[in-house]
């Protein structure tokens, strides 16, 4: 089970960097007003998680946020879903302590109680029982049945469920069921265009403007190859990594080699082709 409290916002009040590409921020805010569950679609590393962190910050730590929300300890509960993620993992379980059984809340029930945002990353990976679990939370009922305890939790007024899903590489078997899908408003994400991406890279890694632009250019070119041995193009995240390596003095070509060529694919030819791209873009 992978449950993490990604944002310790109370102790670390840094604003997450997020560069809006379209109207996603406004849409999310409106959705939150109505407490409509949100589905984020888009390829790996294009900034979905960062977007949720940013929104959680704005809603729970922002200047205009209500006092109730400011007091929430963990405004964002992120769960990275995997194929063994069961309902129990989300809701909670009895643990043995000595000779006693003790109830331990799962991230979802914690979030439902606290009134925070619960973010289920890559939801399609999770087991069927856990996807069905969220149904009652995402319609007008806003309830979470806790089977083991025999109780039903009413969601806190500030609670919002956000899920993400990557239509690119999941196979047909793992598609999101319509019954689940149709409970969310969906916001599409894609990689930013070269200039915006260059901005992100420059900000995140600290490389100069030229290098950032070149990295973004490389990213766009590599993404053209996504049907060859890797389903996803190179993520903005990887480009940022390459930038970070470069800032610390690794030669650009070498930095791209380790952060991009070798990372995105195992096909030797594709690696070589990307290598040639890198050599075309960056001076030796």
């Amino acid at each position, binding site marked *: 089970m992978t449950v993490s409290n990604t944002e310790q916002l109370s102790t670390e009040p840094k604003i997450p960097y997020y560069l809006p590409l379209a109207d996603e921020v406004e849409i999310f805010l409106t959705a939150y007003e109505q407490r409509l569950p949100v589905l984020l679609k888009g390829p790996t590393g294009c900034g979905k998680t960062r977007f949720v962190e940013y929104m959680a910050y704005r809603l729970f730590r922002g200047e205009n946020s209500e006092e109730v929300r400011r007091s929430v300890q963990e405004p964002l509960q992120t769960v990275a879903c995997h194929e063994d993620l069961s309902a129990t993992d989300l809701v909670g379980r009895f643990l043995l302590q000595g000779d006693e059984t003790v109830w331990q809340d799962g991230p979802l029930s914690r979030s439902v109680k606290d009134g925070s945002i619960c973010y289920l990353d890559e939801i399609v990976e999770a087991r069927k029982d856990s996807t069905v679990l969220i149904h009652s939370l995402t319609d007008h009922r806003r309830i979470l049945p806790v089977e083991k305890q025999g109780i039903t939790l009413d969601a806190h007024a500030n609670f919002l469920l956000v899920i993400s899903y990557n239509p690119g590489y999941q196979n047909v078997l793992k598609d999101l069921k319509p019954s689940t899908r149709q409970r969310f408003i969906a916001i599409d994400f894609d990689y930013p265009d070269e200039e915006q991406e260059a901005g992100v890279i420059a900000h995140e890694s600290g490389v100069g403007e030229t290098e950032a632009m070149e990295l973004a250019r490389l990213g766009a*070119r590599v993404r053209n190859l996504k049907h060859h041995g890797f389903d996803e193009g190179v993520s903005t995240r990887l480009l940022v990594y390459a930038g970070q390596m470069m800032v610390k003095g690794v030669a650009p070509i070498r930095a791209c080699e380790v952060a991009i060529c070798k990372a995105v694919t195992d096909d030797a030819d594709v690696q070589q082709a990307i290598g040639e791209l890198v050599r075309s873009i960056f001076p030796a």
Partner: protein
Amino acid sequence: MTDIESRLRRLKPEVADQFARIGAVLRADLSETEFAQWGDVCWTLADAGWHGWEVTNDFIALSLDLANDPTQLLQVGDYCTALVSTSFEPGKTYLRGVAELNQRSDYKNQRAKTKSTKINSAEINGADKKGAETKASQNRDEQSLLLIHETGREILNRFQQSSNMHANFFKTAFAIAIDQDLDMLSAWCRLASLNARLERSSLLEFLDLSFAAQQQNWIILADIGVCHRDNAMAYLKFSGKIRYAISPVEQPLAELALTYSKGQQSIDEWLLVLGKVLPLLTESQARALIEYTGLLNGVFEATALAETASRLPLTQHEVLNAWLEGRPVNENEKIRLAYLKLESAVSEQCLQELLGQVQLHEEQRLLQLYAEAMSGTRLKIEVGEGLPSSDGQVIRLPSLIDQFKDRTENFRWLKTALIHQLGCYEFGTFDYRRGDSFIAFEDQFRSFEQPMLAETLFTICESARVDWLVARRYRGAAADLLLIKTAAAQDRAFEGLSQRRQLLESMVLYSLDTRLPKPLAESVRVATVELFKYMDQLKDAGADVQTSMAVMAACYSIVSGTEIDVKPLEPVLYRGLIAFDDASINLQLTALEDLEADFADSDDDGVQMTGASDEANPNIDELQAGDVDNPSAVISADEDMIVPDDLDRLEDPAGMQKMERLKQERKEPAEITYRYDEWDYVIEDYRRRWCTLYEFRNLEQDVDFVPDTLSEHRALATKVRRQLNMLRPELLRKVKGVADGEELDLERAIEAVVDRKSGVSPSENIYIQRQRKERDVAALFLLDMSASTDDLIEAEATVYVENDDDYLHGFSAVSDEPVKERGKTILDLEKESVVLMAEALEGLGDSYAVCGFSGYGRDRVEFYVCKDFDEPYNYHAKGNIGGIKPCRSTRMGPAIRHASKMLAATESRIKALIIISDGYPQDFDYGQDRNSKDYGIKDTTRALTEASQQGVQSFCLTVDPSGHDYLREMCPDQQYMVMQDITQLPDELSKVYRGLTS
């Protein structure tokens, strides 16, 4: 004497007059007897026969010249009388020859005399020397004459009734005697007498040839002739034909020929090849070739080297020496020859490494990926002839890059050439529009008075712009570009050109970032300053194709004033050629097709595009609404095109009309060809890219075949389906949370314990089980379409029995339902079996392909794809299968290699290749010996091994009763089956399939 004269007068008065006149002079020089003899000769000659008087006339004329040597005169006379016995011709030729020989020595004598007096008459030694020389020369001529006499006599004796031949002999003999020295003549005479001992025809041939090629080293040739008469003739024939080409290498060449002749090796073939090759080589290349040939062992190797000569870097001695050093001296002949012919992989690789050459096919996939990444579209990289070029769909690059001596640099050249082509797409070269025209570029050029000049200027400007933009945007590529540009600039010639060419060249050099050579003519200098000022606009980051057009127009106004020079500008090699209009049209059409597809997809009712409104005249050019400022490659431009307005436009009939026009202008895409290596067991190496395989996807359709087969074999079809349905999924999948299983699901187990502790009833489903749930199979059926599959199946075998219980053992012989009729061929049955399989497989859900192969020779292996893996089994595929027809040979190797390649591309877990054939692999050039089956079998074996290395399981089914013999060699026992009764094929096929895929 008067008696002879009067006799002559009766014969020919003119001769008699001459006789009298010359006789009067001669009487003084000759003795009485000699003079009488002379008179007799004259009469004998005249009396010899028809036109005898002509000979007499010549003889009398000659007599005066020879008067100072009466013995010789009479000798000549005597000899001549022997000649004229059958015809006057030989005698005439002979006398003419003697006269010329005599004249030559007279002339030489005179020259010698004048020379010696000129130098210094006082130098007696010198004069003596000259005198001696004169004497020697005279002496030599006498000897020549003796030689000719002697050989002539020999020929005369052997072939008595061949006056023409005799005449020929003398003609040639004297020609050689006059032009060349005595040794040569004697060698030639030796050869002639050698030939005279053979048949008449060979002597005739020899005489003809040697007259045509008198300038020979006859001494060597005679030696050759002594060892090997045919070689001498061959050599003579050869050297006569391409005299000019062999002159620089004559001596070593002749010596080589002699060496081979001494070894009794026939040099026919070698000379034949040389005859083709030498004229194409430069002098130094030819010299090198002969020199290297000398290093080789025997004439076969020499022939092989000559064959390869045009592909070898003959003047790069280090490379060639190293390459020759690497040749397998101790191996058998075929290996050695394959090496020299550059046919074996070892040899090719060795040479390539030495040369640092880059072969496109080795880098093709890499460059394909590179191009795709850069452009975002599927621009295909292909091997092209000549310069790099592009037409909007395909980028053609040269197959071999040898601009530099170093591999890395050659690769950089290749990459730069590709980047330049890609740059044209990226920087919007083809976005140029001119009104409604589809050939915007051509129209624009035509609007100038000198369209050629306009085009040339535009090409320079546009290439310059693209290169500068590439360098600006891609800093890494800029370094390559600089290297290649510098090298390209070195190839440009500037001196001695017309003013116009100098201006154009200076623009090219400027675009290559290279300084102009100095000094320049003032007028040129002034003009270039102006031109470069215009061209600087192209260096701007925002320069687009319109800028290029504008700059072109500005430059045109300067250059067009100069005198016209029709010689076209030498292209800059790495920039190649770009078919501006072709590419532009293709790009527009691709965009339109995408649009059409989108339109069709979005419209469920399938509304006819043609039947729509007639509103507002559409303008397809607006389709190209791609944002010019957006530099991110073509794909974005394409996307931009698809805006709703354009969709409306397509509904317009005029729009459709234009589209049709575009389609017509669009060129047919090239045939899909593949090259495959072939294994040669004799040289134990691959012959690289030896076979050319053509892939066809559209066969002549026979749509009835499949339904007919199915209705004919309904019962059998059901059975095959039932059998295949018994195939179980073979992929294991872990299923968690089951009540019974191989291992405990820890998480669930803990939960159960906790539940029990907390008083809740625990779940029993705490185990993990492995279950077979999935199939991941790709199968390819490869049908032999060779001519032999056209054979009819024997009548008694064409009977089927339905016997469900017995399917594992095939059908028994008892029949209650004759299914097959007479007149079916082996191929029909192959097809029927595949159809039955296909039907069953559709039900099973396995992915499969049906292909056939045939062909003729290594340059044409035909591969028919009736149904590809991802194609649906539809009307078209069924028609294709029905349309399979017997063709020609069975070259299995390349077909298997291609099939494995297709299978490997499916990335399925189980890849099965099922080959159905009717005999051993054969083709007219499958191995050097047509009758030897070994080559084909060995290659096929190799191909099957390669397939299994790629994870492809193969199985060969054959109906050839002798199949055991070679199939045993080709594959392991469990991977082949020889069917005694071909009618079992459908049944066996399904069994084989089950065996392979489960």
